[in-house]
């Protein structure tokens, strides 16, 4: 009953970090439109293995759009054509029979390719280590209701905190800037009283780490927001800059 698809895939293949890499073409027949994009790649890999080849490595884990591990650039758009959707939740019904699909890894100096479509996003962990938290030890927390927090503020903090850390913002940015990721983390804590005591230090250190990782400078194109699986707004970037300006005068 469902029309099956025959697809041409141009996939980036790279043996390891030092390999130059190249595109390779594959033909995949009889793809069900109900498959997810990653399931389509699973089928491709089974075909490659049966043919005695090396399957395409790509990062993935939860396959429900929350872990942030999948990281494909599909036809020039990180996570593909459907907005607010991670690669793992994109389904093949968005494609037509005979389509050619180009699949590349996230590309940025801060995200070196490990193999094929898998990249190293350790830079994000190092940025978080530089202050993306509230410095509170276990055990000395006051009662959860001791400090009321306006619902609007809690909701805004949640909007920022929904970031899944996938790095699509960097991948989509013409400048490979990590401003949306860093801005979202800094913003989350500016909305909450718990984050206030170290807000200056946090902004200063996280931005310095972001720069040290070699990410580009945000030119306000706003592509990041358009590809973000959680639709995180560039208002967060403005907030980060506001925090930064405060660091100079504090």
């Amino acid at each position, binding site marked *: 009953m469902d029309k099956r698809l025959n697809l041409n895939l141009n996939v980036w293949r790279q043996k390891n970090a030092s390999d130059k890499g190249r595109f390779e073409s594959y033909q995949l027949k009889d793809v069900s439109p109900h498959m997810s994009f990653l399931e389509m790649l699973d089928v491709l890999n089974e075909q490659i293995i049966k043919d005695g080849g090396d399957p395409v490595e790509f990062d993935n884990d939860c396959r429900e759009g929350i872990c942030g591990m999948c990281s494909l650039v599909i036809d020039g758009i990180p996570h593909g054509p459907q907005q607010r959707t991670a690669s793992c939740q994109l389904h093949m019904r968005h494609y037509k029979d005979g389509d050619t699909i180009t699949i590349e890894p996230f590309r940025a100096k801060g995200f070196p390719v490990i193999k094929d479509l898998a990249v190293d996003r350790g830079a994000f962990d190092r940025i978080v280590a530089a202050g993306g938290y509230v410095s509170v030890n276990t055990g000395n927390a006051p009662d959860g209701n001791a400090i009321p927090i306006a619902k609007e503020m809690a909701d805004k903090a949640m909007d920022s905190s929904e970031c899944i850390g996938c790095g699509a913002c960097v991948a989509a940015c013409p400048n490979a800037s990590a401003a949306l990721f860093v801005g979202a983390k800094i913003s989350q804590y500016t909305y909450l009283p718990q984050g206030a005591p170290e807000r200056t230090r946090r902004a200063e250190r996280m931005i310095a780490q972001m720069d040290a990782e070699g990410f580009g400078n*945000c030119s306000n194109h706003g592509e990041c927001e358009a590809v973000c699986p959680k639709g995180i707004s560039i208002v967060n970037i403005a907030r980060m*800059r*506001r925090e930064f300006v405060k660091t100079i005068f504090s």
Partner: protein
Amino acid sequence: MASQSISAAYRMTVAKKVLMALSGLFLVLFVIIHMVGNLSFLLGGPDAFNKYSHTLISLGPLLYFVEAVLVLAFVVHAWNGISISLDNSRARPVKYRMLKSAGKPSKKTISSTTMIYTGLILLVFVIIHVKTFKYGPYYSTMVNGVEMRDLYRLVVEVFKQPLYTFGYLFTMLLLGYHLRHGFWSAFQSLGTNHPKYSGAIYTIGIAIAVIVAFGFLAVPLAVYFT
């Protein structure tokens, strides 16, 4: 809390953007005033235009100060722009075979992706422009018994040349493009994005771009076609 020194802050990407925004907004202000002044060329005729420019020149030290600030803003803006652009090209050493826009809410436009190119052309233009007019041939005229520079004559001479005129037209359109992204972007860089106002700022930016570009086009077109 230890605050950082301004020089340390400057090395950070975010600081470059803040400076870019401050200098850019100052330049926008200048450009608007410049454009309004130019309109006196059309509306007031030769004497009015020459008197206007004479008044400016007569300001003396005040003018030098404003010029110095202007030059500073210009240099900061250009220097930062080039520096940011170099940073950015280093941030993605291997390019994509294909990179497309994901569509709204993205604000990526031809304008936003060509800022460095329109900026560099504007840089060259400004140098030529200053050389042509400020340091160009000195014609003299008398208005109400006062001897002053006849800038009106120079403007007419220059804009009768097709190459200069059309080069100018082209550059002013590029200025429009530059401002179309630059204006709202400056506010975003200064951290003033707010759901309530950002839409208005974005629209004002487009309006300023259009008004400035066409405002500057008026004089050369009028001269060339009369």
